[in-house]
């Protein structure tokens, strides 16, 4: 006579949390922060084609760390949700807060109902009409939701990055300052990450820009990115064949 395997619910949850946390820590880091002109995302990403940061809606952006296939399906689901919501009602009725709650519910039910939790941590950000209206939400694998007032770091070695950010963050940074700040924070997390050991790898940079009229999301790549980065870190990113770098809005972002 065999006894069925028994594990206490506490043990089960602990195991799942540990599993998800380990998976997320294996990846590379992403930071998101508010700056004077909107919200900035900077991710360490060796690929120029597989994005960690993307556009969800006109004023809403998305960043994720962890397992690509899992956050990709969340990203697509989120885009479908907001596009349907905005189509059935009005684009103004779509908000990051509402999307974050839907994501939180989804992650929570994945965490409790499924055998394997999602190994992802995601960020939903919205740029408002004024800096006070900018929102930054962090969602973890178990569906907890945190409204971050200034910045967040996800994936990889988070502690050194967060502590660097906490020490040096200032309100109302310009885009250039914010990029430098984010790169500095990311580089504090890379030591002993099994990378080349020095500095950060290729970067994926995108902003939600308040000054852009319709769709606020803009990727900064190629020459536009090189101009923002410190000279010694040679970032020879090639522009992907997606949208060409729009020369117009940069002027606005420089002064903001």
């Amino acid at each position, binding site marked *: 006579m065999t006894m069925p395997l028994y594990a206490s619910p506490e043990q089960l949850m602990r195991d799942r949390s540990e599993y998800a946390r380990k998976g997320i820590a294996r990846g590379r880091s992403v930071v998101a922060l508010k700056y004077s002109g909107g919200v900035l995302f900077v991710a360490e990403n060796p690929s120029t084609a597989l994005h960690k940061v*993307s556009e969800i809606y006109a004023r809403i952006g998305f960043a994720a760390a962890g397992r690509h296939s899992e956050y990709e*399906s969340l990203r697509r689901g989120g885009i479908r949700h907001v596009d*349907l919501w905005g189509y*059935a009602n009005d684009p103004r009725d779509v908000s990051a807060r509402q999307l974050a709650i839907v994501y939180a519910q989804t992650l929570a039910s994945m965490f409790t109902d499924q055998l394997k939790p999602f190994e992802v941590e995601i960020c939903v950000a919205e740029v408002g009409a004024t800096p006070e209206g900018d929102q930054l939400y962090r969602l973890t694998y178990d569906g907890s939701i945190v409204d971050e007032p200034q910045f967040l770091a996800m994936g990889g070695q988070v502690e050194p990055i967060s502590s660097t950010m906490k020490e040096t963050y200032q309100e109302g940074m310009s885009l250039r300052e914010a990029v430098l700040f984010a790169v500095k924070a990311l580089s504090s997390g890379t030591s002993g990450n099994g990378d080349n050991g020095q500095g950060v790898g290729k970067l994926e940079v995108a902003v939600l820009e308040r000054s852009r009229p319709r769709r606020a999301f803009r990727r900064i790549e190629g020459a536009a990115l090189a101009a923002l980065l410190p000279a010694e870190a040679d970032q020879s990113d090639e522009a992907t064949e997606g949208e060409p770098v*729009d020369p117009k809005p940069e002027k606005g972002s420089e002064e903001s």
Partner: protein
Amino acid sequence: MEHTPSRAMPGATLPAAYLTAETSSFTDFLRAQAPHLLPGNLGGVGEPVRARHASELNPQPPHGTTIVAVTFDGGVLIAGDRRATSGNLIAQRDMEKVFVTDDYSAVGIAGTAGLAVELVKLFTLELSHYEKIEGVSLSLDGKTNKLATMVRGNLDVAMAGLAVLPLFVGFDLHAQDPAKAGRIVSYDVVGGRYEERAGFHSVGSGSLFARSALKKLYDPGSDAATAIRHAVEALYDAADDDSATGGPDLARKIYPSVVTITAADGAVQLPEEEAAEVAESVVTARSSQPRG
């Protein structure tokens, strides 16, 4: 993609179909998840309420009238008058019939206004949805093909007299010669799409007059300002001979709407002051020379 009865609501989880659907088309997604939101009878479910014929409707639903498109050196523009008519009445004087649909394309509409505006709204969303899901935007031919499918989906309603005719203009980023990258694509009610290689085209009730005017005015090597002037002249001629097309209304400050598309600026609506300037100078010129 299976239909899940519960749509995502605030405070509910994303339905499984949202996470696993393999389509990058918003229309296909809508057809599976919320067919009641599709314009016309694109949904194809249930028994559609069919208008026996539009002529039985009283009053007639508003009709959009004349749209012109002109290419120029390094781009393309689309312009429309602002009038919508309902039978012999003016339904609206300041209607927008030209829409920026994404960074490098725009659509002007003629025909049943209510359906056409809905069609453009869905088309715009379709383009941005694809771009967000796939990470790259559709090719220009892909965009025109999507629009053709939508027009074809409206065929049943068009047979009942509620036709919608879009006119598409776009800037082809992959064109060999950037000077000729501006393209015009027209449609018929059954969804046929036709590349207008002549460099100008017009649709709507006043299109005959507008096209004749453009035939004499059009110059492929002209700059954007000249092309805008030509388009407004053509609309003036259309309004001159077609009662359903509205000319520049200086008293009410209603001017034709113009969208230009170039490599550097993308698709942008001409600011109202500039449209006013062009319209006023055309009207002034016509007061001394009525036939242009």
